[in-house]
Structures are given as structure tokens and as C-alpha cells.
């Protein structure tokens, strides 16, 4: 089966292609992508920029309808592109088939009409502020203009994530140029195809293509010619990109982040701890912990009905059973080795330290729970590996996170209401940007402040039409007496 691994506007043709072959149990997928030159890039840029003129006068609610219509297609289990994605995304990423199916379904629902309206409402006084001047309460009018041209550099750890970025660009009536990752190369392009089925004008403002990152020839025109660049990836990647972008270009980047969980003794009651366990299991198994929303570590408070050590042990049985239902991705030797190194280190510590225990899958590295009382922040090599750290009070864990301030993101938390507010206050002060229930760590809500910032507001340019101009204009209306 051949798949055209690119989404480009009408009228663009390429002379030569290369293929990436993916095989699985006799089925073969050939990802066919153009061999690009800088001329191709320049031509594509020019085309989508011109095509943008057509959607510039679309009203935002029309654009929402279009995105919603594309998403509605994906909510039908028989939609061919969905079936294609459900078959090949697991094969390419290695993530469990059912997990991909469930998570994609859930993720795509974030872009239905009602979620998009909420998303916009979160940041703007009215949806129409993106279409026309909107009256300000202090007099005058304001209007928000999106970027003319956005270059998106996607990452491949979480299937479908590029859609988020694309949807923002479309809502802001920008021309969108995307570079797909090799890790999960399909979803951005499939989504562009769905948009094409719904509205050609919008589809014609998108160009999404794969190439190996760091290709100066291809990337230079994009860095020079975009008014906004959005990059997902490692801090090194981000630094490399930053050097190449003119200082006047707006640059948003989503770099490395770390997340963790906190479980208070209230959640370890005899009738509740099973629920706590399942929630922790979900947080550390969705996409094998590859999202930055997933926990590296969980602080567990002593003094509940179930001890932290017991919880660690129970979590390991939970993971063992789960491994049979949802298999973990096959790892690279480096990833396996990283898990083994951590296991070894703690297994030998456990020989002389009774406060350390290692629970691990028997044959491979499918899951690992490291229990200890070392109140420092221990990062995890992920892929279903977690530290369970016992503490006397959840507050004790705060000093451990201080060195990682710039990286902190989500904290999954299970505690009493009064403590929740108190702890959230402290966590916020220390740099955490999202606090949610354990079990929901991987599922951000529409309108969340991604890494503590606005999504759309960060991209728009405001234009103020001041009251003075309005008042002056009145003077020229001769009909008024």
C-alpha cells in the first residue's frame, strides 16, 4: 500500500520521490514523499501564502465549522482515514493498538465545535475579535490578527499532537507550513486530508512535509520567511532553531518538561486505594509515559491504610496485568539499557538499604517500580518506569523539585480539598503550570494554558482602534447635528 506522505496545496507537483517502507506481519506501507529542494520550499511558501488570501475573510465560526466537520469524520469508526491511522500509527510508533485507538478518539474530541468555542472563549472576550473590531469597555475598539505564515516543527512522541498546533494556525487564518516527525509521521497529514474533504480553501493553505531535521537548505527559507515559528522538541533543537530565526520573528517553543504525582494519605484508604492505583497506572502507561505530561515519580504519603511500600508493590501487580492487555512499545537498546541501569542501581542499593525496593517485570523491561525514601527528584527513563517515593508529608517533597523549576509542568494530585488549595499554591509558586487529578495527567483540557501560557493570544497581534479616532470620525459625519 502506498501513502502520499505529504499534504500540499492544489497545483503543486514534484518531480522525484523517495520511499520509506514500513512492514508488519506481511502488510507493507510505503510512505512516499517528495525529494525537496529549496526552490520547492519557496514555491510552496508562496502558494500557501497566496491561498491564504481566500480564507482571510472567512469568519472564525466558519473555520470552526470546517474543523469540526473534519473531526466529525474521525469520530466515525468506519472512516477510512481513521482505520488507516488505527492500523499504521501503532505499527510505526510501537504503541499498543488499543491504546492508540482510545487515545486518538479522546484526543480528537478536543477539536469539536464545542471544545473549540471554549478554547477561544478562554483567551478572547469574543470569538468575533478575530474577525472584526470589537468594542472595548474603556472606549475604542480592538481586533486580533493571526500570523500570516506559521512554520511548525512537530515532535513525534504523542500521536496526533501536531493537530493541536495546526488547528491554532487555522483558527488564526494563517498559512501553515509543517515539518512532520519521523516518530509519528501520519496524523498531521491525515488531518490535512480530512480538511481537504471538507473545504479546499482551507486545505490549500497547508503544506505538511517530512524531511530530516537540520537541513539548512530547506529550513533557511522557512526561518527567514515565516513571521511565526512554533517548535516542539529538545532544548538543543530549540537553541539551534533560535539561532537561525530573525529576531523580529515570533518564536514559540515547547521544550523539555517534567511531571510528577503526589498522593496524600487520604487517597490510601481501604476503600479508595484501588482507584488510586488504577489512576497511577493510567498516568504511567498512556503512550508509555512519552508525553511530558506523564509522571517520572510519585510522592506517596505515609500514614494511610496502605503503606507507600505496599502501594508500590500493588502498583507493580497492576502494571503486570496491564502489560498483558496493553503491550508496551518495543524499545531501542538505549532505552532498554537506561531502564536496566536504573533497576541495577536500586537493586544493589536495596541489598544494603531496607528502605529501597525494586519491583520489575521478570523477563524484559516492560514495567519497573522503584520504591525508596530518597526525597530528591529522581527522573525516570520512562516507558513504564516510575519512582515511588515515600514521604511523611507531601510538603516535604517541595525542596526536591526546586532545582527543576524551569522544567516543571504537570502535577497529578490526590489529596483532601483544603490541602489541595494549599499545595497548589506552593506548587504554582515553584514553577508548576498544571495541577490535575491523578489519572488525568495525560489528558489536558481544552483551553489549558500550555506550559503556563496562552495558546492563541501568544500568536496574535492586537490592533487598537482608539476612541479618539472614533470621536474624530464622528466630526466628519456631516449629517449629525
Amino acid at each position, binding site marked *: 500500500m502506498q501513502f502520499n506522505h505529504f499534504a500540499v496545496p492544489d497545483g503543486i507537483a514534484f518531480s522525484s520521490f523517495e520511499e520509506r517502507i514500513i512492514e508488519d506481519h506481511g502488510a507493507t506501507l510505503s510512505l512516499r514523499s517528495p525529494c525537496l529542494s529549496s526552490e520547492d520550499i519557496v514555491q510552496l511558501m508562496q502558494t500557501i501564502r497566496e491561498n491564504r488570501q481566500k480564507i482571510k475573510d472567512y469568519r472564525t465560526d466558519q473555520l470552526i465549522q470546517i474543523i469540526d466537520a473534519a473531526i466529525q469524520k474521525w469520530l466515525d469508526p468506519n472512516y477510512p482515514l481513521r482505520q488507516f491511522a488505527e492500523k499504521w500509527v501503532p505499527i510505526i510508533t510501537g504503541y499498543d493498538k488499543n491504546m492508540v485507538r482510545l487515545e486518538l478518539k479522546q484526543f480528537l474530541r478536543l477539536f469539536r465545535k464545542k471544545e473549540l468555542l471554549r478554547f477561544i472563549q478562554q483567551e478572547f472576550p469574543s470569538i468575533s475579535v478575530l474577525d472584526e473590531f470589537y468594542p472595548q469597555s474603556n472606549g475604542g475598539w480592538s481586533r486580533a490578527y493571526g500570523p500570516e505564515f506559521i512554520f511548525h516543527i512537530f*515532535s*513525534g*512522541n*504523542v500521536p496526533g*499532537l501536531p493537530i493541536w498546533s495546526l488547528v491554532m494556525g487555522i483558527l488564526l487564518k494563517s498559512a501553515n507550513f509543517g515539518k512532520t516527525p519521523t*516518530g509519528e509521521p501520519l496524523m498531521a497529514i491525515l488531518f490535512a486530508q480530512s480538511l481537504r474533504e471538507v473545504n479546499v480553501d482551507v486545505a490549500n493553505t497547508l503544506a505538511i512535509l517530512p524531511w530530516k531535521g537540520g537541513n539548512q537548505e530547506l529550513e533557511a527559507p522557512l526561518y527567514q520567511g515565516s513571521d511565526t515559528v512554533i517548535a*516542539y*522538541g*529538545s*532544548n538543543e533543537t530549540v537553541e539551534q532553531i533560535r539561532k537561525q530565526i530573525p529576531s523580529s520573528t515570533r518564536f514559540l517553543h*515547547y*521544550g*523539555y*518538561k*517534567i511531571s510528577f504525582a503526589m498522593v496524600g494519605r487520604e487517597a490510601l484508604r481501604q476503600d479508595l486505594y484501588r482507584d488510586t492505583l488504577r489512576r497511577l497506572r493510567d498516568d504511567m502507561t498512556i503512550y508509555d*509515559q*512519552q*508525553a*511530558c505530561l*506523564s509522571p517520572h515519580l510519585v510522592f506517596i504519603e505515609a500514614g494511610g491504610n496502605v503503606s507507600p511500600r505496599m502501594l508500590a508493590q500493588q502498583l507493580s501487580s497492576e502494571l503486570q496485568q496491564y502489560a498483558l492487555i496493553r503491550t508496551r512499545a*518495543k*524499545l*531501542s*537498546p*538505549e*532505552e*532498554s*539499557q*537506561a531502564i*536496566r*541501569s*536504573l533497576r*541495577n*542501581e536500586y*537493586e*544493589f*542499593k536495596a*541489598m*544494603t538499604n531496607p528502605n529501597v525496593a525494586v519491583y520489575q517485570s521478570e*523477563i*524484559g*523491561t516492560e514495567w519497573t517500580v522503584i520504591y525508596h525514601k530518597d526525597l530528591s527528584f529522581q*527522573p*525516570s*527513563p*520512562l516507558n513504564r518506569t516510575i519512582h515511588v517515593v515515600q514521604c511523611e508529608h507531601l510538603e516535604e517533597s517541595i525542596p526536591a523539585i526546586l*532545582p*527543576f523549576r*524551569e*522544567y516543571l509542568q504537570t502535577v497529578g494530585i490526590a489529596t483532601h480539598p483544603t490541602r489541595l488549595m494549599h499545595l497548589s499554591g506552593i506548587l504554582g509558586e515553584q514553577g508548576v503550570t498544571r495541577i490535575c487529578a491523578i489519572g488525568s495527567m495525560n489528558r489536558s483540557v481544552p483551553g489549558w494554558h500550555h506550559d503556563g501560557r496562552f495558546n492563541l493570544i501568544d500568536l496574535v497581534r492586537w490592533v487598537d482602534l482608539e476612541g479618539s479616532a472614533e470621536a474624530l470620525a464622528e466630526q466628519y459625519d456631516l449629517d449629525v447635528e
Partner: protein
Amino acid sequence: MKKDSQQIIEKLLSFIKAYNDSDDAFNQMALELFRFQFEHNMAYKKYAVARKKTPLTIKTWKDIPPIPIQAYKEVTLSSEPIEEAEAVFMTSGTTNKEKKGKNYHPTLSVWDASMVGPFRHFVLPHTQKTTIFVLSPAEEMNQNSSLSRYLTKAVEYCGTEQSQFFFNQDGLDMEGLVHSLQSIEQSSDPVLLMGATFSYVHFLDYCEERNLSFHLPKGSVIFDTGGLKGQAREISGDDFYAWITRSFGIDRMDCINMYGMTELSSQLYDQTIRKKQVEKATPPWVRTVILDPETLAPLPHGMVGVIAHYDLANWNSALAILTEDQGFYNENGLVLLGRIQGSEARGCSIAIDQLLQSQRK
């Protein structure tokens, strides 16, 4: 020393002396040594028991669980009281200076025997003694370095009176070495240069700056160990040997790389001098296996995996160790690919190594 220890040492010394490549003999000795270590080395026993491996459940040496090299850092791996050890060899501790891996040697008799036989076999198959110039510190400068012991013993057993160490308190005596190489160039006596791979790099830099190069006499050999990874400067193996050829007039097949580890008591060698092959070979009391990094199951011939060594000379700590190095076998022998590097994160989630680095800032 325990009677059991004395007995096992005797057996090992005669095994090493025999230099016999029989699988049966290896298997028998390995099982006996495992029994010994299981009984006297508590940390190794714990590790084995946790994997349900005991002398009763094990039928062949391949079932003996290799202990990860981190064990040498985290626990005491010794069958004899460590206070009475004749020597302790320590790892350089590049990642954490406070936590060095320690290999205790109650006596160095087995270590020495294990060193000298293969050294002669692989490095000096055609001669009993040769002039050796050493570019790395001698034992007296670093009592805890297995490499220093190795170099000192090489000179003691196989060096002529002209042999010399060029590494002193002030570092490598470049000038002295240049001088000695120039005078050896005049003679027709071959020389064996020995040192850590990076000592050569420093020396070659020095020579290049001064436009110096040498034509060492026929039969001369360049011996290096340690490799090029993990240094500030990245040089490939091919570039390194090409540089050696340019600067010393020594062919790649007259260069030999030795692979040793503090955690082992034997060494592996290139077969350049014996067979004109760069793949590595082991002495008869060492078996090296390639395992699947995910499951630690043995991999079929030719596949790349993580390396485990079974070294009978490692009688006091653990005869089977699991490294963090990658390699594979081809028809000529073992090919080493260096350390499995820490994993890169796939997306926005930070990789463990990078996070630790940021913490050190």
C-alpha cells in the same frame, strides 16, 4: 585466606597455565567457581537467588547470571574479607567521583597469570622480550589502576633493559619520548609502544605541532587500550590508526588494541598480530556473549547486543559480568561498538541524562 579460596586459586592457576580452549573444561571450571562464589560472596549470591539461579538449578555456564557492573560501585563483591586484599582496582569514576567501582584482589597471583599468558600470545607471539616504551602511569604512580599494574607487569615480564616509562609526576614526558623514539629509529631493534589510547592522541598532537614523525624499525608494535569514546575530542578508530600509521610508520596490522575492564581480571585483544584480523579474541578462560538488551537472552550469531563476559580469573568478585557495551560477532571474532549511550527522549519529555546535567549546572 579460606581453604576453599586457596583450592580454587590453585585450580585456576593450572587452568590458565594449560591455555586449553576446551568447552568442557571451561564449563566445569565455571560451574565450580560459581558454586564457590555463591557460597562466599554474599552480594553475588543475593543477585543470583533473586533470579532463581543457584548451583542446583544451573547446568551450564551460560545459565550463570552475569552481574551488572554497577554492582562494583554499589555493593562489596568479594569472597574474601576486603581488609586483607592485596590490591583494589578502581574504576576512574567519570560520572561520579565519589562512587568508584572496586574490584578486590585478595591475591594478584591469578590476575598476573591471566595477564601475562595472553599478552605474550596476542601481542608478542614471536619474541620473549622486547623494548617497551610506556606512555601511561606505572603501578607505583597509581596503585588502584589495573591498567598501571598491567603495564608494569608487561615490562617486568617481557621488557628488555631499555624499556622505559615516560609518564611521571608531571605527566607524559613528550620530549623524552621523542628523543628515545629518535634513537630507536637509528637502531634496527623493534619497539613496543604501550599506553592508553588518548595518551597517543596527546603525543600525536604534540608531534604534529612540531612537524615530527617517525619510522619505527620493522617488527615494532603499537599497543593501545581504553578507546576513544568519552573524551573531549571525538576521533574515530579509523582516523586514529591512520594517524598512527602516518606518524610512526606502523601498519594497522602492527597495531593492537586491548580491551580491559577494572571489573574483570582478564583482557581481550585484537588478532592483528596473530591473524591480521581486527576482531577481538579472548583467552581460553574467558567467554564473551552477546545478549538482547531488552530481555538479556542470548542473541543469534551476528546480531548486535549488550556484552557479558564470563571470566574465570575473576574468582573473588564475580565470574560473570554484564557490561553496558555493545558488540557483535562476525566470522573472525568479536566486534566492539562501545558503550550504549544514554537514551534520547522521544519528544518533549526530558531524557534522564540531560536532566541530571541540568541539575549539576
